[in-house]
Structures are given as structure tokens and as C-alpha cells.
């Protein structure tokens, strides 16, 4: 017959196992609602622990000068810097500025390309958040013509 002491000891072992087993690789990868609700570029950056954004030649944002279709605009964010924790892609004039956030691990280049929806012509930003919280950005204006010819 199991004593109460034994039962409690066993429960604690199981609880300890659960606590360690349930720990995900990227603990901070849970969807950051605050970041995606942020209306401004700076607010979204702050939600990921970034400080005040400052422009930097070492970060690159790629995108078309004129996007024929605002529903599918290819946007790329990259940097050659080391020590980058996250790369963010933002469209300033969208209802919520943040489009995507990429965790940069040692195994990948800090270079990501995706396609985003743009509600209107706007500046698009690539922000690199460094390990020390510094937020460096590059921006570019992308004009959007929802239909018809460019310009």
C-alpha cells in the first residue's frame, strides 16, 4: 500500500518531468498579439523588445518601386550584421503596421522574402532587432496601383 509520502514524491517527479518536457525550443515564439495590433512601426518594434528605431545602411528592404497589385507585393528584409535576434517587415500605412517577424537563429541567414498585402502606397520597413535591443531599420517607398497601368 503506497504511503502518502510516496504518492507526493512521485507526483513531484512527474510534475518536474512535465515542466521540462513541455518547454518549446523557441519559447518566445508564441504569437505576439501586441506586436500585430500595434499601429505604428515603433510600437511594433517595442513589442518585441526593440528600442527606438534608427536608420542604418546595414539593413536592406527590397520591394518594387510600384506594385501593380496591392494584394501581393514581394518584400524582402535582410542584413549582413551579426547578432541579430529578429527581422521585422512592416508596412507603415496598413491597418496594423507589422506584416511578419522572423526569429534569426545561427542556422539561417538574416535574409527573408515574402509577399504582403498593402492597402495603399506606403513606406515599407525592414527592422533588425539586435541582441542588445537596438533596432535598426531601412525603409523604401512602394507605390500601389490597385488596378490599371502603373504611374
Amino acid at each position, binding site marked *: 500500500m503506497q504511503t502518502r509520502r510516496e504518492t507526493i514524491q512521485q507526483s513531484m517527479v512527474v510534475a518536474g518531468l512535465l515542466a521540462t518536457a513541455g518547454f518549446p*525550443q*523557441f519559447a518566445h*515564439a508564441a*504569437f*505576439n498579439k501586441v*506586436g*500585430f495590433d500595434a499601429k505604428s512601426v515603433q510600437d511594433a518594434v517595442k513589442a518585441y523588445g526593440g528600442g527606438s528605431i534608427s536608420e542604418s545602411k546595414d539593413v536592406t528592404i527590397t520591394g518594387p518601386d510600384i506594385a501593380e497589385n496591392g*494584394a*501581393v*507585393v*514581394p518584400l*524582402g528584409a535582410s542584413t549582413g550584421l551579426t547578432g541579430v535576434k529578429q527581422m521585422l517587415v512592416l*508596412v507603415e500605412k*496598413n*491597418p*496594423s503596421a*507589422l*506584416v*511578419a*517577424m*522572423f*526569429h534569426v*537563429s*545561427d*542556422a*539561417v*541567414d538574416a*535574409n*527573408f*522574402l*515574402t*509577399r*504582403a*498585402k*498593402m492597402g495603399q502606397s506606403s513606406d515599407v520597413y525592414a527592422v533588425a532587432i539586435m541582441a542588445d535591443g537596438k533596432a535598426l531599420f531601412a525603409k523604401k517607398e512602394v507605390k500601389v496601383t490597385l488596378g490599371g497601368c502603373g504611374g
Partner: protein
Amino acid sequence: MADPMRIRAQAAGDKATIRVLMSHEMESGQRKDAAGKTVPAWFIQEVTATHNGKPVLSAEWGPAVSKNPFLQFAVKGAKAGDKITVTWKDNKGDTRTDEATVS
């Protein structure tokens, strides 16, 4: 969601460029349907990728990513024959994983 992702993984030098095309509506939650009701947001929130079983990428997306999302990234040290898996999870809790071999 029912359609598999198309993953192309190409080794070049000491890294592999991975291109993924996912099949997903990515409803922004801003659109209204014919009756005037707002179509609820339905979009991929989390994307993760592994290289030979080791997590290499994790990303959070918002509703602004385009429908049938495209993603391109580069994995260092990946060579031909390595396995790449990509997983997405959307805001309804649905998830999908697909795998490709680096060529």
C-alpha cells in the same frame, strides 16, 4: 489548407535557399462579404522550419501576408540530401507540415 505546400530547397555553396509556397486564404479580417458582414480573420500565425530535425526558423505572421503565402529563406550548412520540414499553424489552430529534400 488541404493542399500541400510546395517546397523547393536548392543547395548552393555552403547554404541552401528554401522557397515555400503555402496554400492558405490569409483572410485579413478587413474584407466584407456580399451581405456586408465582415469576413473573420483567418491567417497563418506561426511558421517553423527544421533542417534534419533541428529547428532553424520560427516566424510570426499577421493577416497582412498575402494569400497563398510565399516565403524564402536560406539555411546555412545545408547540403544536398538534407531534410527540410516547414510547419505552419493558423489562428484557428489548424496546422500543416510538409517536407522536402535539399537538391
